[in-house]
């Protein structure tokens, strides 16, 4: 007997902030909702966004100012219509969160209090100590538990493929229950990808081990183009070696950067904003100091948090006190900590419009997996949480409304059997390289050749290495042939996703022959608005290589200017 197929109006893939916000919004529209994630929702990487969430909520502030800072931060590659929406809706979203139970920091009057953040012309970052993402994620999960009657949670289910009907519409997904290995076809009228970023393509990275670009690759494979994939943010303050993040909140609270000669070098690179310039600017400054021999011998510079009063550090930066102690053996309240730029965030992703719709009918994308684009060439700190929530909500609402007018979707059951066969084939492989070895080589290579400074030679090299690794991955072997928590076979699937995403990153970086935002080409060191004020789109063509095309940047009221901090 064939079991009934799980069917919902809206299926959400990924249960970080974007996914959970989408689920709550879709449920509010009356839709039946399933939310699915390869980890328990509170393990999602939204946890790591420590510093805060931006909103022009203060009467002295304005959404226009927030929008301009975001556009300037994006190096004018962000789409201004989408940025306007995000910044206009930010205050209401923060209030919605507060009403749902988020324990935001209060000022002396008991109202919401703010801290300063990079690239912003006003202190508009709302926060909970330095666990903002974690607190938001856990409060949204409280709401998911509250609305359990409308929202089915599939925790620890791994998506192998998106499902399509005969007309190419996305009608759900095929997933493997990690706990027992069972494969299932989930039918849905609308499907929202909210599966996060792809930082694991780089090693080290601040990103969690789960950030393997699954959703980007899945969308790419069914014909949804990826956009601005070359825009990979290196965060200015990560620990050497393991790549763990030290929040920008540290600099927001007043910490300084010094080189090995004790110079506060940001005075040279951003005389006005100093440490609080945009992340791309600060990361390049640090890398320049290190490359020119003014860093420490381990390739780092120093972040001095002792400038911040100790009591304030213990209250507002408690998590990085722990991180300093646990991961660097440093008491940050008493001595500087050594940091360097590290891979942190991908501004690019599945091209999506202001409702989250991708090029494939029925498929939405929100959060880091998507490129709307509100971050353009460089994301401002504390805009990522905002992006996930605003576009998570908008996608959830739109997907639910769309589903209300549709009949029963018609997924093709053969796809489930194809996915099952593909997994069986991985388990039968012999003689190839280990999956873990290929993953390691990919990450190390990307961090060497596709990092803060890039050039044609390095990128061409990187491309040929990715192509070779793609070939090797087809025969890569694993040890675990079981069904219960077979993380090994999932690792092989993740490697496939990472390689597709890495190739798009490299091809995008080769294509963009200018320096803008996070993309700095030493062979094209200037921004070139005449030729490159446009998005790069990559679609998968028949022989599994990215096909490049372009789309214009939407400009509403802010014409590109020279960018200084």
């Amino acid at each position, binding site marked *: 007997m064939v079991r009934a197929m799980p069917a919902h109006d809206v299926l959400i893939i990924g249960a970080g902030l974007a996914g959970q916000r989408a689920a709550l919004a879709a449920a509010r529209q009356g839709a039946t909702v399933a939310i699915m994630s390869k980890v328990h929702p509170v393990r999602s990487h939204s946890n790591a966004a420590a510093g805060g969430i931006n909103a022009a909520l203060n009467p002295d502030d304005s959404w226009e100012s927030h929008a301009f800072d975001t556009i300037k931060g994006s190096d004018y590659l962000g789409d201004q219509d989408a940025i306007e929406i995000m910044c206009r809706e930010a205050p209401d979203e923060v209030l919605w969160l507060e009403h749902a139970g988020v324990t935001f920091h209060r000022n002396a009057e008991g109202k919401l209090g703010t801290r300063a953040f990079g690239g912003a012309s006003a202190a508009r970052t709302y926060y909970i100590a330095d666990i903002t993402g974690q607190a938001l994620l856990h409060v949204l999960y409280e709401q998911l*538990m509250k609305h359990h009657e409308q929202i089915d949670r599939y925790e620890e289910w791994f998506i192998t493929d998106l499902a399509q009907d005969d007309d190419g519409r996305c009608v759900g997904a095929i997933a493997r229950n990690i706990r027992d290995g069972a494969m299932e076809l989930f039918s849905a009228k609308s499907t929202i990808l909210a599966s996060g970023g792809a930082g694991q393509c780089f090693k080290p990275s601040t990103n969690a081990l789960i950030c393997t670009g699954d959703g980007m690759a899945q969308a790419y494979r069914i014909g949804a183009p990826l956009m601005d994939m070359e825009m990979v943010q290196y965060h200015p303050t990560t620990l050497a070696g393991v790549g763990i993040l030290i929040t920008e909140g540290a600099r927001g609270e007043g910490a300084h950067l010094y080189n090995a000669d004790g110079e506060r070098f940001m005075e040279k690179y951003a005389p006005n904003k100093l440490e609080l310039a945009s992340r791309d600017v600060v990361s390049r400054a640090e890398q320049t100091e290190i490359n020119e021999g003014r860093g420490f011998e381990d390739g780092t510079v120093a972040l001095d948090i002792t400038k911040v009063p100790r009591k304030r550090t213990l209250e507002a930066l408690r998590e990085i006190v722990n991180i300093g102690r646990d991961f660097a053996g440093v008491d940050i309240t008493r001595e500087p900590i050594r940091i360097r730029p590290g891979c942190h965030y991908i501004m690019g992703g599945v091209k999506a419009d202001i409702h989250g719709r991708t090029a494939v009918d029925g498929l939405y994308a929100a959060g880091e997996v998507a490129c709307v684009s509100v971050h353009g060439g460089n994301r401002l700190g504390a805009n990522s949480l905002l992006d996930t929530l605003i576009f998570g909500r908008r996608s959830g609402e739109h997907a639910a409304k769309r589903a209300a007018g549709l009949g029963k979707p018609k997924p093709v059951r053969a796809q489930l059997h194809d996915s099952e066969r593909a997994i069986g084939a991985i388990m039968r492989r012999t003689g190839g390289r280990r999956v873990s070895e290929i993953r390691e080589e990919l990450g190390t290579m990307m961090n060497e050749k596709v990092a803060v400074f890039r050039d044609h030679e390095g990128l061409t090299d990187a491309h040929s290495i990715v192509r070779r690794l793609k070939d090797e991955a087809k025969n890569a072997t694993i040890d675990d042939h079981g069904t219960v928590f077979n993380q090994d076979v999932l690792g092989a699937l993740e490697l496939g996703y990472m390689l597709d995403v890495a190739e798009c990153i490299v091809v995008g970086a080769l294509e963009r022959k200018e320096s803008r935002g996070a993309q700095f080409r030493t062979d094209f060191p200037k921004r070139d608005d005449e030729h490159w004020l446009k998005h790069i789109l990559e679609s998968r063509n028949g022989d599994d290589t990215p096909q490049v095309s372009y789309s214009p940047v939407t400009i509403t009221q802010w014409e590109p200017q020279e960018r200084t901090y």
Partner: protein
Amino acid sequence: MPDYTLRIRRYSPENGDAAHWEDFQVDLDGSRSVLDGVLQAKDREDGSIGIRCSCRAGICGSCGVRINGKPNLACRTHLDEAHARAADGVIVVEPMGNMPVLKDLIVDMDAVHWKKIQRVTPWLLPDGPPPEREYVVPPDNMIDVTQTMACIQCGACVSDCLSMEVDPLFIGPAALAKAYRFVGDPRDGHQEQRVRDLAEDPHGLYDCTHCFNCIEACPKGVAPMSQIMRLRRIAGDDHHVEDRNNGHRHEMAFVKNIEKNGLLHEADLLPDSYGGKLHPRAVPELVSSLPIILRALQRGKVTPAGALLHKHKAPKDVKRIFRDIEGREERYELNLYVAGEEEDAS
């Protein structure tokens, strides 16, 4: 690089073998984590080793395990520290306790931990519709509940909870800390119902035995036991909920006893714990304690004169301490975010 040996508890429900130990050699710097060690073994030797992990930075709460018998996050335990504490130089890594093992180091959090979290109505229940803007609340209250918001639901406290070992139905440290997050939140309108519900549950608030294991186990400084004690104080002091286990009266008997005598007068302690010698509740307790009292007399631990004629009076200093503490307007808070961290001697 130094070599470390990891002894990992292996179990697969699929192959019919009993759980067993397997040793792996890893070559990593001592400042790297036990998780890095497990992942190296997984990458190089045996990809079937099961461990949940994600952020590697002590934030996601996935990699709770027991290392040399003590629960912790594998990602924030250094190899050299674990090695220094290992009995024979071998770092022992095994799944957390109090939860069923699914495979190797992976336990069933849903069956225990998350079920208990859901028991405490884990969402905000404000009275009436929300205000137009934010709720205006004292800043210290928000900093206060931030300590419990710092919980990452890793399960380390559940793993080491002694009460839960004896009473698997005990709501437990993580869920009770979660409950405090709402009870201590001034926006929640159901403080009294919440504490009353938790206090009246026979597996609830008063099931904790103050063993401190959860405080020691918690990698994030949430101090679940402190939150449980604060829930009890709110229940008892603010809502006059009776402690069903007599623990509160017992504690107060100590306080009264010291205030009066300066030194502990044991003969008064037991009856006072049950409301005084003549209280109906005290009689059966005294009777059932008779064998103990007789044994104590027999062994000279107490003398009839000492027990009945305790003459010691509390000195002035003790009285001053009592006046000092009772004169305070606010309760002393067991919360590092509010009370601040103790400065070290230097």
